[in-house]
């Protein structure tokens, strides 16, 4: 009971710090919106030849939602945890009675709330500007996909901090991993333009599978809209991340 109240307490201040930090607001909130608008303007009227043909604007709504969810979870957690670690804030927190899991739960909560907000924001923009239907009937499938994806990418974000030696390296390492995979996974370039070799390469990593699952939930091709096999791959990556995080996450600065 006290644990949950503490998570709420930690979450409140994480939210304040998130919205006041220009870097997190730009990269997590503004950047996906800008990318969506650019892609929608450029490819408006085009048809993407997947699943019998989908409007480009319809294609990019779940694509950029995928990007936003990964950005709010994996990227935000990796960046803010490394900065807090190197600033000595994590070590300092360990010196208080706060249980460590509460601290992490507050941060994860912050990420998930931002991910949900971004989903709502992008759905609203897609619907208002380009008439992309909001698939209300798909809500259970969308939420399930979101929960599995957000949880997995949170674990991966915490795990990756173990490979980041300093604050300066954080943005470089995270972007070097994510940006190419966004391109190769059909997030920016529609997947009918990508050679099949590229797709099968991207298929090794969780971004492609999460996008596939999210696309199936958001733009159902009839029948089952929960893409269990894709979600399973995402979840396996998430569990691997969790194991690495539990084993290698550190609370003390590396660079001192």
């Amino acid at each position: 009971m006290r644990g949950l109240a503490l998570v709420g307490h930690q979450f409140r201040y994480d939210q304040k710090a998130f919205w006041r930090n220009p870097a997190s607001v730009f990269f997590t909130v503004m950047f996906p919106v800008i990318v969506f608008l650019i892609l929608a303007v450029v490819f408006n009227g085009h048809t993407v030849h997947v699943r019998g043909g989908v409007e480009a604007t319809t294609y990019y709504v779940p694509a950029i939602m995928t990007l936003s969810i990964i950005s709010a979870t994996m990227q935000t957690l990796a960046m803010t945890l490394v900065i807090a670690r190197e600033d000595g804030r994590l070590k300092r927190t360990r010196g208080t009675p706060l249980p460590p899991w509460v601290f992490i739960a507050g941060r994860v909560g912050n990420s998930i709330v931002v991910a949900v907000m971004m989903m709502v924001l992008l759905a609203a923009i897609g619907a208002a500007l380009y008439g992309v239907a909001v698939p209300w009937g798909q809500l259970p499938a969308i939420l399930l996909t979101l929960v599995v994806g957000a949880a997995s990418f949170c674990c991966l974000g915490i795990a990756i901090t173990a490979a980041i030696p300093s604050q300066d390296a954080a943005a470089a390492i995270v972007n070097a991993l994510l940006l190419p995979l966004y391109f190769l996974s059909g997030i920016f370039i529609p997947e009918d333009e990508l050679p099949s070799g590229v797709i099968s390469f991207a298929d090794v990593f969780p971004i492609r599978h999460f996008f596939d699952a999210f696309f199936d939930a958001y733009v159902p091709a009839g029948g089952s809209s929960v893409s269990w096999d894709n979600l399973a791959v995402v979840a396996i990556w998430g569990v691997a991340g969790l194991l690495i995080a539990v084993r290698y996450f550190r609370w003390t600065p590396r660079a001192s």
Partner: protein
Amino acid sequence: MAYGDNEAVRGIDLEVERGEVFAFLGPNGAGKTTTVEILEGYRKRTGGEVSVLGEDPERAGREWRERIGIVLQSSRLDPYLTVRESLALYAGYFRAPRPIDEVIELVGLGGKAEERARRLSGGQQRRLDVGVALVGDPELLFLDEPTTGFDPSARRQFWEVIAGLRDLGKTVFLTTHYMDEAQRLADRVTIIAAGRIAARGTPADLGERERAATTIRYRAEGREVVLETATPVRTLHELTGEALARGEELEGLEVTRPSLEDIYLELTAEAAEELPESPAAEPSEAPEPSEAAK
């Protein structure tokens, strides 16, 4: 405690009394941070016994953490939270925190309560650090080199905050490499050098014992004469008496007693010589000390 093949500190025996300001003084790399991190429960030791507030910090849990406050040697609070918010965030971690307005006054940040941490000066950020360590109303406060890099006026302001803590009855464990800081703030001082204890006592004791030796300098026939004496009045009387009898001046006559700074430098230099393989700049890893803080 070993760092590679080097032990960072060894045979350290400390006792800190409740309610006192205890200064742990030594040059950089002497093993101060290693020792204080063992006491704070951040580091494991390779040997020895440690008891802080009646518990072994390695095994102490949340109850123990309710009773201590820590200011790390280098750490930054969230730059986007205000003074008041940072204090409220940490206050929430403790069962019986001290009122936030009271803490703000205590660390002299009255006019800065709504300022974000990133807009505070270095000295103000450090005082906020102390505020955050105080907000849980701990019995024992660790301050690891709190004023390094301060300008003189910021240090003076900071000292006032620490003096205020003594008035509150807090026990303060202060590490520093500034002799004047220890002298000004501490009830008792222990000097560590090269991982060993070089001297201990009250600031006055440390001064008295070593000040026994007074140095007298003058020039005679173009050469400098230096005398060390434990009885300066007698020696000086003889010297000046002889000079008067000869009808001469003692050129460049100077009578000095070592400052605490001199004593400190001498003590730490001696300790470093005794241990030719002195540990490297920032020792870490596990220890072999025996310490006690009541």
